[in-house]
């Protein structure tokens, strides 16, 4: 319950990156009038990003709506033939080791690097093709600039070669319930033990 944010507040946040106030100021302003406990985002929370995203169901969300559970985040694009299937496989290997946890405790987020091609419908198809449990997985797209902004925070380097291929780094990021980066697994086919241990550690503290 600690990180639960009332939807009314989330919908009330329509600030762009050129705004005169802090998003948390807006949260604070609502705090007295809302019954639900609102936790202020920490300075390093990725949920401070105010950008809007579309999920695989074509719903518009803000990243702060991912709060409240541990999230595994990775970037990919559906036309990718080499690394992306492998990063999804790596995430599934981690997921397999989390079977003791409920979907409400751990989520997995895939963010596309190719918004031009990866529409919400394409993402939905990708989720179906790869048997991704909709209760566990969220697939996101947004504008190129918003994706780029998230990518820099995830220490991702990527470059659209313009030939249908995107050169990119492969990183799986573990976010705690408040949206802070706790751990990053870099490269493909890595032993998931350290990442799983990190998640175990986080969930024992919730």
């Amino acid at each position, binding site marked *: 319950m600690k990180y639960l944010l009332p939807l009314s507040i989330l919908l009330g946040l329509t600030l762009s990156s*050129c705004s005169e106030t802090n998003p948390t100021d807006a949260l604070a302003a609502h705090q007295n009038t809302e019954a639900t406990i609102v936790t202020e985002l920490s300075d390093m929370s990725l949920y401070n990003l105010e950008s809007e995203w579309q999920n695989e169901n074509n719903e518009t969300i803000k990243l702060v709506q991912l709060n409240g559970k541990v999230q595994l985040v990775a970037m990919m694009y559906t036309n990718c033939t080499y690394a992306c299937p492998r990063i999804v496989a790596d995430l599934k290997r981690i997921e397999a080791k989390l079977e003791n946890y409920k979907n409400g405790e751990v989520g997995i987020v895939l963010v596309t690097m190719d918004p031009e091609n990866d529409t919400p419908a394409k993402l939905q198809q990708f989720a179906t093709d790869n048997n991704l449990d909709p209760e566990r997985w969220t697939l996101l797209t947004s504008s190129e600039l918003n994706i780029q902004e998230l990518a820099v925070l995830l220490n991702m380097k990527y*470059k659209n070669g313009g030939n249908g*291929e995107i050169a990119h780094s*492969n990183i799986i990021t573990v976010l705690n319930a408040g949206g802070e980066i706790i751990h990053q697994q870099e*490269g493909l086919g890595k032993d998931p033990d350290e990442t799983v241990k990190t998640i175990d550690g986080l969930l024992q503290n919730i």
Partner: protein
Amino acid sequence: MVNVKGGTFVPLYGSDSIPVKVKTFLMDVYPVTNAEYLAFVNKYPKWRKSAVKKLFADENYLKKWDGDLSIGPNAAKIQNSPVINVSWFSAKAYCECQGKRLATVEEWEYAALASETKANAANDEKFYQRSIEWYSKPNPTYLPPVQEGFRNYYGLHGMIGMVWEWTQNFNSAMVVGESRADVTMDRQLFCGSGSDGAKDVKNYVAFMRYAFRSSLKANYTVANLGFRCAKSI
């Protein structure tokens, strides 16, 4: 702003020496100054020194300023000098608040190829030598006013010889992690055009810029790193 007429060039890093097309765009004549940045934080309190989130700017943000709304004791001397110790997020926000954006790496590099007289001075030995000399000089105690930077073919001042500048997609250079350690691609970490490599190795100054960019994180603030804005037409 001035018009930078579009064209093609072969960037230092790219796929198969394919020239990259740059569309005509607008670019600020000068890097953003301390005085201009002060006006910005005046209007947008969340970018003040004491208010900015660490996610968006590290602890050296506006290091030389001595308060939220004060450039410091040397204000008279540096108010028209480039603002430095700003992060990618803050530079991006500044530009967005002016209805502009940061230039892409490709736009910036394309515009920086120009000498006083030529749009593309890549093969001009003298111009190249002067650029190298600037990069090998230590930072002056006080950066000069932006007007003192040399005016290039497009009318842009100080593209070289003033400060390093943030670009929109600074994280697109395909150099992994610690730039001095690994300039080759690690197949484990990348897919796609994984064989991207340096093209014109004699262009050491551009190489330094790419290497520097790839060593940055978006909340870093560095003593000789400023920015200017651009705009699509």
